[in-house]
């Protein structure tokens, strides 16, 4: 028998459902004309550069089939890079090369591919295979993130990224997504990555969840999530809130990576951020969104919004203890 919870229980916990997210938050607060800035990663990058928001270095953009051969020649000199569709959705079509093995390219999973695989992948991107609505697309090549070594222990074969939900300029909820062997080096929670809820007040972990179940340590590296505390937390929140101002979107998910040298960098933005963050935080979004709305009405500016958010959404005790494991 499949175990379900009653809608009233979910409502009591303030869990945000897909329908309500779409109607009450996305379509109510995100104007359609602001979408391209978010859906098109190249536009996002340009806008971020204008505002001084750090992003990974752009190596090049491929917009025509014939450029692919040149691109592969150029990439022969690079140790690591990322190829991604400019208008991709849901992390689809992102190819991460972390090193070289002779003529071959080593993917983050450890698999080695050759130049023809790179060509095929890029050609698929141009044809729009990974893009919203299947329209033609460009491919962009970015620098590989040299991620903060402190976070390396929490991720297996992949870059851990921080997702912050920002509502009307107020950071509401955050999590860090840690790739596992099960998720094949990808930071997708439904594929088995671990989602670790992060306290908005301190940047410390609140709870960790894999496949919807609470965990305390990384299944592959064994690192305990209890001790996890994100460095540069203030800067991360500042970056996330700035993105909201930059895009004009009321309901936004900002994906941020921590670089060893340059600190927090904007990876990409999402106008339709998913609901899994609630599971990672073991808390519903609805109450926080209501409070955030109040903060947005009262606060004078950017700094105050972040300060109020950190005060209000701070959770003194993590969930780890209460579960006991």
């Amino acid at each position, binding site marked *: 028998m499949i175990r379900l919870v009653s*809608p009233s229980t979910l409502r009591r916990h303030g869990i945000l459902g*897909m329908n309500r997210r779409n109607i009450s938050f996305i379509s109510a607060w995100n104007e359609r004309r602001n979408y391209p800035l978010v859906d098109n990663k190249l536009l996002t990058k340009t806008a971020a550069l204008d505002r001084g928001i750090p992003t990974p270095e752009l190596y090049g953009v491929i917009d025509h089939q014939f450029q692919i051969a040149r691109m592969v020649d150029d990439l022969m000199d690079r140790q690591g890079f990322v190829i991604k569709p400019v208008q991709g959705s849901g992390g689809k079509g992102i190819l991460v090369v972390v090193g070289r093995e002779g003529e071959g390219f080593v993917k983050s999973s450890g698999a080695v591919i050759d130049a*023809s695989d790179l060509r095929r992948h890029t050609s698929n991107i141009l*044809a729009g*295979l990974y893009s919203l609505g299947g329209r033609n697309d460009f491919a962009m090549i970015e620098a590989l993130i040299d991620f903060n070594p402190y976070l390396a222990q929490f991720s297996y074969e992949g870059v851990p990224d921080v997702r912050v939900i920002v509502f009307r300029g107020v950071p509401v909820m955050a999590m860090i997504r840690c790739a596992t062997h099960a998720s094949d080096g990808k930071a997708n929670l439904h*594929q088995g990555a671990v989602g670790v809820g992060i306290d908005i007040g301190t940047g410390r972990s609140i709870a960790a969840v894999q496949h919807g*179940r609470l965990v305390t340590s990384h299944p592959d590296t064994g690192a305990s999530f209890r001790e996890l505390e994100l460095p540069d937390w203030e800067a991360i929140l500042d970056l996330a809130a700035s993105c909201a101002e930059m895009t004009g979107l009321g309901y936004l998910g900002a994906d941020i990576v921590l670089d060893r040298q340059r600190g927090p960098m904007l990876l990409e933005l999402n106008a339709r951020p998913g609901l899994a963050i609630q*599971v990672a935080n*073991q808390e519903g979004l609805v109450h926080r969104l209501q409070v955030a709305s109040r903060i947005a009405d009262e606060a004078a500016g950017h700094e105050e919004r972040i300060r109020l958010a950190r005060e209000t959404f701070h959770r003194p005790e993590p969930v780890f203890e209460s579960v006991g494991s």
Partner: protein
Amino acid sequence: MSESRFQVALVAGLMILFGLGLTAYKVLRLDLPLTPGESREVWTIESKVSFKPSSGPTSVELQLPEALAGWVVLEEHFASSGFGFTVIEEGGRKQANWTRQTLEHPTTLYYKIQAYRATLDQLPGYPVVNPEAPLLEADQQAAMERLIADLQERSTDVESFTRLLIQELAQPEPRQDAEFLLGTYQGNATRVLLDTLALAAIPSHTVRGIRLQDGRRRQTLTALLEVHTGAGWLLLDPHTGVSGMPEDFFPWQRGEGTVLRVVGGRDSSLEFALLRNSLSAKTVVSMEQRSEDFALLDFSIYALPVEQQGIFKGILLLPVAALVVVLMRILVGISTSGTFMPILIALAFLQTTLWVGLAIFLSLVSVGLWIRSWLSHLNLLLVARVSAVVIVVILLMATLAVLSYKMGLDQALTVTFFPTIILSWTIERMSILWEEEGPREVVKQGGGSLLVAVLAYLVMSAPLVAHLTFNFPELLISLLGVILLLGKYTGYRLSELYRFRDLANSK
């Protein structure tokens, strides 16, 4: 926000009430049945007279059907754009007459009737005229006489004579005399029959009419043979020799005379489009009583030409399928690959029936996926690859059709109803999904799509649903209202009650 909610609720409420109200009116005041039960089969027969202009004034005469053998004509409708139009009655036979001074373009004239068979009567009496001997060439005459002599030797009466004659002419390799006669009559067996019977002094004539087949677009007139046995008239099929009036036969004209005559035109043709509807016995009776000014059918799809009616029969089911998709996605939260792909698959299922359709779909997709996985090694550009998949899918469909036909499984021939392009994209997407997220996700999304498709099929194939959408198209307005309301639903999806189950319990 809440204001727009209110607006939507108001508009949707009005729509729902309007649709239901109109339906209630039609049910209560006009006696249209809500359920498909206790009905009469009413045939809509649309005659199309088409011809090309030649010089001079144009005159078109169409013999109108004599309602015989229990058939009742409920409604007649003529379309005559730019033509003078009269109906002449002559000796109990009605004839429509279209006239026009000059004509430049090929033209089509329409005559539409609605008819049903009230009683299974036989044809009424008909005056017996002793036939005149046909005018024949000498060799024809000789052949026909030999044939008659041979048949008379083998037969006992008129009936057996006629049957033998029909048999003789219908043989795949007729004997010498019969073959010669058929040759000189350009293979027109009916004319040979009539002339041979006339030469044998047996009174006979044809009864022309239409074989009724639901949804048939370009039906033509067929003829039955009526011979007088001495005791009475006997109706025979001139090709099979089966006697009596077939149930699917609508008699149009009995005896001599032409059905269509076009003066001042060439290449004229007479074709019929046919459609069957079930109307309640009550409605049919009331239509019969006041067929002059029956406003009910002017309101409905029945007012359209038959071909469009047939198309609408299918189209009107789509909103119901869309509702299923909306419900499954918004209330249940099933993920499907492509928003409306399930509807297209369900439409294919309607043609193939469910199990055959499922088997065909699954085999096409799995073989397609297998071939696609080979294609992925070739490093092709996407558009070329999807096109290659399209061709592979078509080849698979052809192979399946031929194989199953050879094995005597006619059902698999309906494979052509599957939307090729959609199938190819499905295969392409599934294949990418497989490579990127693994077979689990493929099964999940593919299964979701199939489940929704099957549900949509079950709803669309329900006789009640077909009856309601076709007879009460205003219910679509109510449906629209419901869908608008669903579009404003902010509650949880069924799948979320599962997804967040631990989250709520852990506290």
